[in-house]
């Protein structure tokens, strides 16, 4: 009797499981996609654009996805905690959108082999960790040409975050381009050692303007430097996002990070089971980097130079790091006619000629 009962229970249990499987197949759960951000979504720069990418996923895939984000996650021991929390709460694809998340991402990915991870701007990959980044220096090249033509004092002020290769690359791309159209131009740099601190960023921009800069470029995430430039009647370039709202007169153009298409594609890959670990590093050509509309105040001949370069980069005829390129000491690092390799660009740790600052910490 007892045996009969347990057999009966077993068959009911079996039936329930079958039924669950059946209904599960009919109505698939939405794919949960998670994001961790270094700044607040309202930074109007780096994090804002990643969040736009997240929204693009929701718009394009609708009820088939569910996205979550955690903002202002410090690049300390906290990152792994938040990632673990996302992975263990059913997120199957997680984007980690700052360099400092690299090792935490790999650590957590090891514990969750069925979850796919996408790390922005890093270089370490594994079976379930991909990397991706934009060739932002292509945008810097276009901006550098405009800056070289538009500056009157021949001083470009640069608000920089951390001396990592990506930022150094941006500075070098800018000065190489600017000097190609104006050999007298110089670049002054202030390191603020933060990605997002509107107060510090604004102070740096003010100091640069006081030192004679009439064009402000930034590699930080808030529009504060743009606002300073607007207020002081100077010119500036938007960073990561179109910052025209913060400097309608000041913004010449902006280098926009456009993550949406990539994010949508990777989400579809996970849904279709075709996701593979890989490295993606593209720029103007694929549209991961785009330029904001040129300000009407830029003369037509300057726009023509900028557009020629932009189109040249897209069709491959122009490379922002084409030799001869000399370092600050005057030594040739890229020979005439040659192009810098991706390896050199990825590990760039020197300034090129024309940078009017000492290389930090070396």
């Amino acid at each position: 009797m007892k045996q009969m009962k347990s057999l009966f229970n077993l068959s009911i249990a079996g039936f329930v499981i079958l039924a669950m499987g059946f209904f599960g197949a009919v109505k698939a759960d939405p794919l949960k996609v998670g994001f961790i951000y270094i700044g607040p979504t309202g930074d109007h720069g780096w994090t804002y654009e990643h969040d736009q990418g997240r929204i693009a996923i929701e718009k394009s895939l609708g009820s088939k996805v569910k996205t979550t984000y955690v903002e202002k996650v410090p690049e300390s021991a906290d990152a792994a905690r938040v990632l673990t929390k996302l992975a263990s709460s059913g997120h199957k694809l997680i984007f980690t959108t700052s360099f400092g998340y690299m090792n935490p991402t790999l650590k957590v990915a090891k514990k969750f082999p069925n979850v796919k991870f996408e790390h922005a701007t890093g270089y370490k990959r594994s079976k379930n960790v991909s990397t991706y980044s934009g060739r932002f220096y292509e945008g810097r090249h276009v901006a550098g040409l405009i800056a070289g033509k538009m500056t009157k004092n021949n001083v470009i002020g640069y608000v920089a975050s951390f001396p990592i290769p990506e930022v150094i690359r941006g500075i070098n791309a800018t000065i190489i381009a600017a000097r190609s159209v104006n050999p007298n131009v110089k670049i002054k740099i202030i390191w603020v050692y933060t990605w997002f601190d509107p107060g510090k960023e604004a102070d740096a921009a003010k100091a640069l303007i006081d030192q004679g800069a009439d064009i402000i470029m930034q590699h930080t995430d808030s529009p504060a430097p743009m606002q300073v430039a607007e207020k002081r009647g100077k010119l500036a370039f938007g960073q990561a996002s179109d910052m025209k709202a913060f400097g309608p007169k000041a913004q010449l153009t902006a280098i926009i990070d456009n993550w949406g298409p990539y994010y949508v594609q990777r989400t579809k890959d996970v849904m279709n089971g075709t996701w593979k670990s890989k490295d993606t590093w593209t720029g103007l050509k694929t549209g991961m980097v785009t330029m904001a509309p040129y300000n009407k105040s830029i003369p037509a001949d300057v726009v023509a130079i900028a557009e020629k370069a932009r189109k040249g980069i897209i069709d491959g005829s122009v490379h922002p790091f084409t030799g001869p390129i000399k370092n600050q000491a005057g030594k040739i690092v890229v020979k005439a006619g040659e192009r810098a390799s991706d390896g050199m660009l990825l590990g760039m740790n020197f300034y090129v000629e024309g940078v009017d600052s000492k290389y930090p910490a070396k």
Partner: protein
Amino acid sequence: MKIRFEPRQSESRTVVFLSPLVAVLFTGLFSMLIFAILGVDPITAVYTFFIGPVTSIAGWAELFVKATPLVLIGIGLSFGFRSNIWNIGAEGQLTIGALTGGGLALLFYNVDSVFLLPAMIIAGIFGGAIWAAIPAFLRVRFNTNEILTSLMLVYVAQLILSYLIQGPMRAPDGYNFPESRLFHDAALLPTLISETRLHAGWIAALFFAVIAWILWSRHIIGFQVKVAGDAPLAARFSGVREKNVTWLVLLISGGAAGLAGMIEVSGPIGQIVPIISPGYGFTAIIVAFLGRLHPIGIIFSGMLMALTYLGGDAAQIEMKLPNAVTGVFQGMLLFFLLATDFFVRYRIRFGALRETPDKESSKKGVVG
């Protein structure tokens, strides 16, 4: 009608320890109100924020990981705060401790020795203590305000970290990114529960609490520190040397912060990175006061503060609430703590000043 605040004749010990609980209660009530205004169900929200994170072993493990540096530094600081020595620079001492302790791991990279970890612990404590010795020396020798010197040294420490991580300590094969190598296994703190991040650092924090408790309640050092803080004149008459107390409390708090830094890099982080602490040295000041400067109290307040971070994660992931909610909670907690503290020491009186036999003491009341 006039409202006056009169100082209480004596503070009840029970009330002193009860007031943080009242503050927590008020924070809970007001956060429910805020949740309701934000349009989310207050009960679910409070559950997600305060209880959800600790419904699993992994959750508790994360709570202890987050609380470890807060408790260590908080207890260290309590020595100074009890003796009126204001070490505001624990963040800097943490950074130096992480550099000396972690530096040893890099110096002996791939050396498998059981002595490496103990040596790193000593180096971490030593590094933090040295960094705190600077304000101690300046205070004892030149009577310099230690609040300013210790705080300014935070920025110096962070710049040293920034210099080392871009140069000598940078990983050789890391594309020049400002990060050290990942520590090898012998330089990593052992994990207490497998599959979690809970590391031996938590044991160190609890152990330090026990030592501190013994010092406070059973040892002459604790007594001297207390007397120096409560009654400096009496302390001087009874032969307690203020200079010695200054040195002692700064070295203890610096050493504890240094150890916390070493534990962060050798535990959950596993390498030296440009941002080792998201402000533990400053948050620990709140933790120390929330815990009534008592070692056991600080363990609980450290855990409570850690819970607000975990709750913040959960609120963002599960309820799509903004990160700012965490900051609001921490702010409310501190506000209510200060408010309840005020009422522990003062009472409200309505009406005009009464003639009392003890005229002097009632005059001291704050007229509001």
